[in-house]
């Protein structure tokens, strides 16, 4: 019964957050682009997401001629389900602040969230539209290139704690008095980059590239199908933010948990700190969108395989050195090694980055 209530509570919270983030995104983007964003519905357009939701609910869901009807209707649901389920193991607050706490939490999250690509591929393929198929193809290319660095960037933390259980990862950071972002700065940056790719946002949103693919995999979706895809996208952002908060930013703890002097910060409840950390990532993603152009998907693959992957491997090596050589007591030296090795790694790898010319040399076999 208690679990049931928690599930409903988390789901409701997620839906509210999705609405809020969609409003926040439009407002922040508006500020960045010398305009106001939504201003009409409620105070500074705060009820805009509700108005949008009603509009999308009442709109007709057009199924294109020649589309695979069942798969077409199933795809957004698949996308949403795999976006929502990982929240079963996310610890929102201290104590019992989770729906369930299993010993392979991190593995479960990674497994489920990578399945979300199926929704996109099925949606793109079943739409009977060429733009959608190209978008689905890009989704696969995107998934192949970011998924490995994403997983490898989390390995270091598992090495440090010796557990996949998310609550244990958080409590390990509490015991140490040092968040893992301080021990694993390289992995954290890699995770943020790969995580942005996982959320399929600018600069990695080539699967809904309106410059060349109209709207990518969900070109043909309207009404509720469309809004489910968008909801899945926003929930993915929350998920990536939640994982980065749990794994790198000390979960529900206040900043500097071991410093007594800052104890007054505890007036903010644990879940408050957690949400704050999630929204840091949300803001980062919106900031990217307001600033950066989109990378080409072959460039993303080079980036994923030739820069992110070596960097994450380097980060694992550094974590091993940290554990074996006992660097807890002279962190400065550790940072120095990290900095030098990462710089070397990035310069060496990016030498090959822009050299690749993508021209059609010979006739290749299509799909």
């Amino acid at each position: 019964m208690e679990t049931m209530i928690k599930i409903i509570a988390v789901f409701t919270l997620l839906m509210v957050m999705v609405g809020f983030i969609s409003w926040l995104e439009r407002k922040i983007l508006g500020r960045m682009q010398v305009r106001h964003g939504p201003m009409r519905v409620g105070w500074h357009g705060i009820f805009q997401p509700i108005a949008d939701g009603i509009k999308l609910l009442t709109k007709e869901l057009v199924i294109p001629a020649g589309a695979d009807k069942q798969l077409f209707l199933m795809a957004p649901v698949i996308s949403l389900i795999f976006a929502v389920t990982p929240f079963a193991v996310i610890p929102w607050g201290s104590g019992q602040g989770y729906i369930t706490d299993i010993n392979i939490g991190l593995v479960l999250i990674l497994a489920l969230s990578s399945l979300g690509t199926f929704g996109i591929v099925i949606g793109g393929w079943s739409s009977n539209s060429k733009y959608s198929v190209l978008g689905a193809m890009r989704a696969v290319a995107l998934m192949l290139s970011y998924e490995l660095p994403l997983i490898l960037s989390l390995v270091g933390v598992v090495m440090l704690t010796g557990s996949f259980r998310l609550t244990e990862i958080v409590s390990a950071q509490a015991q140490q008095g040092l968040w893992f972002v301080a021990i694993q700065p390289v992995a954290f940056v890699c995770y943020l980059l790969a995580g942005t790719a996982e959320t399929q946002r600018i600069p990695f949103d080539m699967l809904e590239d309106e410059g060349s693919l109209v709207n990518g995999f969900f070109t043909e979706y309207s009404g509720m199908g469309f809004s489910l895809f968008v909801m899945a996208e926003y929930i993915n952002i929350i998920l990536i933010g939640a994982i980065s908060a749990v794994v790198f930013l000390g979960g529900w703890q206040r900043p500097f948990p071991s410093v007594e002097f800052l104890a007054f910060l505890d007036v903010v409840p644990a879940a408050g700190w957690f949400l704050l950390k999630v929204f840091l990532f949300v803001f980062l993603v919106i900031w990217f969108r307001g600033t950066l152009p989109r990378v080409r998907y072959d460039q993303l693959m080079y980036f994923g395989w030739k820069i992110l992957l070596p960097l994450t491997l380097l980060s694992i090596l550094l974590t091993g050195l940290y554990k074996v050589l006992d660097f807890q007591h002279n962190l400065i030296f550790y940072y120095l090694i990290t900095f030098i090795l990462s710089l070397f790694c990035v310069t060496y790898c990016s030498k090959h980055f822009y050299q690749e010319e993508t021209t059609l040399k010979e006739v290749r076999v299509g799909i």
Partner: protein
Amino acid sequence: MPETVEPVETLGTTGTRHLWLNFGPQHPSTHGVLRVLLQLDSEYIRYAQLHYGYLHRGFEKLAENKTYDQFVPITDRLDYLGPFFNTCAFVMAVEKLMGVEAPRRAQYIRVIMMELIRISSHLLWLGAFGIDLGAITPVMYCLRERENILDLIEMVTGARLTHNYFRIGGVGKDLPPEFKDRAVEYLEKSYFEKIKDYDVLLKKNRIFLGRTKGVGIVSAEEAINYGFTGPTLRSCGVPFDLRKNDPYLVYPELKFDIPTGDTGDTYDRYIVRLVELRESAKLVIQALEKLPEGEVMTRDPRIFQPPKDKIFDNVETLIHYCYLASEGINAPRGEVYARVEGARGEFGVYLFSNGTNRPYRLFIRVPTFVNLTIVPKLAQGRLVADLAAILGGFDMVLGEVDK
């Protein structure tokens, strides 16, 4: 350059077929209704073909049924982002045919308006190009700046899109007295700094460089062979600008530089246009300072309409007025070609007159139509995402391409 690949239907061994994709006519990155037919191999373009004409309105034929005066407002609808260039080319052609010249003040005003509209057009291009590459912020800033330019133009012409300001033998009316101060103040105080800011929004971005450098390379020789003009030609390293090479109006009296690129890729097109934004503003300031006093309309009786108050005094004036209003301008026999350097390249008007008040044949040489012919070649072997960047770099306006 890859060799031309003819479209083939099937692949021998596996029997899989290539994907045919209609890139347009209704597509966000074709800036209108251009249709590019693509044959794709996964996402690489094997074969591309351009289909023009979805916005064809038959202006050349239309001109044959209009008097010279009546056709002037229609030229605004050709390249609707740089309407002064079209009007100026047409008006200059008729003037050349009749052997008249606009007064010097009118010529200066024409230069000012054309350079202002060049700025406005390049600003809109900069924003739209950002959108093509997925950067959604620059366009907002560019539109804000463009608003200021359009406000200045609105002060003079009363319109923001289709201005209908130039006349055969001059311009419609004189500059308002406060125009000079406002224009100089805006350009000197805020414009140059803003342009510098907008430049930084994209120029030093690693992703932007990756998307534009080395994409759509055209060599200088190729550019000349394909008949390139305008910023697209200059980006290939050919310093050809009609304002310098075939001077018209008062351009010889003004000082300005012509920016050129080295490699002729999309990035160079961006750089060239950005430098032109600055050069055009300098031209406007110079021209405003040198602006002479005097008439803005020629006094040639074949063109000049007598002022209204004189008409009611004198019967000859009334007859003359009625004659001009009903018949229009009677141009002598002959054929002329007048061209101006538009925002996109050489905009030319070829006029054949048989001595009546209507053109016997009017041919309009539009720059983007010619520039775009190389796109199928550039697209070959590139990704679909590159096609958006290449098309964006050419700064096309379909109203002009399709005439």
